[in-house]
């Protein structure tokens, strides 16, 4: 038996939150797909475990039950950033949100078996990679991508375009 702390009956007050299992059932596959693109197939599963554990930890403190999907994506994105940061040879180097194009750590080197399109996507500079993933994998429009990435709509459009151009070069080359 644990202490009362574990089963705290008052934390969620009168906020109506769905049973956590419902979130897991609804979003496991799409979040996994998202993470496979961001961190590769080997790390995606563990990243998703950590995403749900973090979400469960914070769950009773949520003030409302809206936009839970976006909330989960934010946590998944953060876990992916941590994973890429850990995987890089430069511990303090930029992660998925790194700045200087061409200097981001590539996770491609850790998955030699996967040399298809997705490895090429993962090798893109961080901003382009995020923009391309948000545009095509998550099917967001440029305004939404800008919001997620903290850029203008126009910058989001340019990131996607630059990412596609680079992908085409890499795939043809």
């Amino acid at each position, binding site marked *: 038996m644990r202490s009362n702390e574990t089963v705290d009956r008052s934390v969620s007050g009168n906020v109506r939150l769905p*049973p956590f299992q*419902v979130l*897991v059932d609804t979003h496991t596959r799409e979040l996994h797909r998202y993470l496979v693109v961001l961190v590769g197939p080997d790390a995606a*599963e563990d990243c998703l475990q950590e995403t*749900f*554990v973090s979400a469960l930890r914070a769950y*009773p403190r949520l003030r409302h039950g809206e936009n839970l999907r976006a909330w989960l994506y934010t946590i998944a994105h953060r876990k992916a950033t941590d994973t890429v940061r850990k995987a890089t040879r430069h511990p303090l180097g930029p992660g998925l949100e790194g700045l200087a194009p061409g200097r981001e750590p590539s996770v491609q080197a850790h998955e030699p078996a996967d040399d298809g399109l997705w490895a090429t996507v993962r090798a893109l500079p961080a901003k382009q990679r995020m923009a391309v993933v948000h545009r095509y994998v998550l099917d967001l429009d440029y305004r939404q991508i800008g919001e997620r990435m903290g850029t203008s709509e126009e910058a989001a459009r340019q990131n996607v375009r630059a990412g*596609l151009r680079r992908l*085409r070069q890499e795939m043809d080359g």
Partner: protein
Amino acid sequence: MNDLERQLAHPEAGDLDVERFQALLGERAAAAGLLDIAFAPLDSPLGQLLVFVTPRGVLKIAYDNEATDAALEEVAERVSPRILNAPRRTDELRRELDEYFAGARRRFDVPVDWSLIRGFAQGVLRATAKVPFGETTTYQQVAEAAGSPRASRAAGNALGSNPIPIVVPCHRVLHSGGGLGGYAGGLERKRTLLTIEGVLGD
């Protein structure tokens, strides 16, 4: 949309064994002290049961006439939304129920979590929990044991909404005249349980 864009819109799903993934998640969450309620389906002679346990004990046992979604919503709202399908956390209850149905167990050792039962109803069900295997009592008697001898109708209501049937043996409560009375899971199930306990003949 050109070819490259089409490919990007259909990434390889990546192999994920969802069942294994979720079982692992349940264990990790429980180990971190983040799981308030574990639930799992369980096969029984009374059909599939959905059992819910907390670190305090067994919280709820739902028959299959109660929709899974509704059962989850109810415990999420009334106890905690930190709830996951975590079969291993229900192993002890599963083992005891299996033994009971096999005729090898006469009382349950798993503790009861009374969180879903309030006030007079809790008094009635605590009195009911004391009725031994193979014996029966009446609505009148459990009302009396709960401190309100005239409240046999209210006692009937409390028994009818017993969230932990089988373990809190409301099937052992009958009408004073000898009739079976009611059962939220259906009278057929009440008959089966009383037959297992030798109260009714085969």
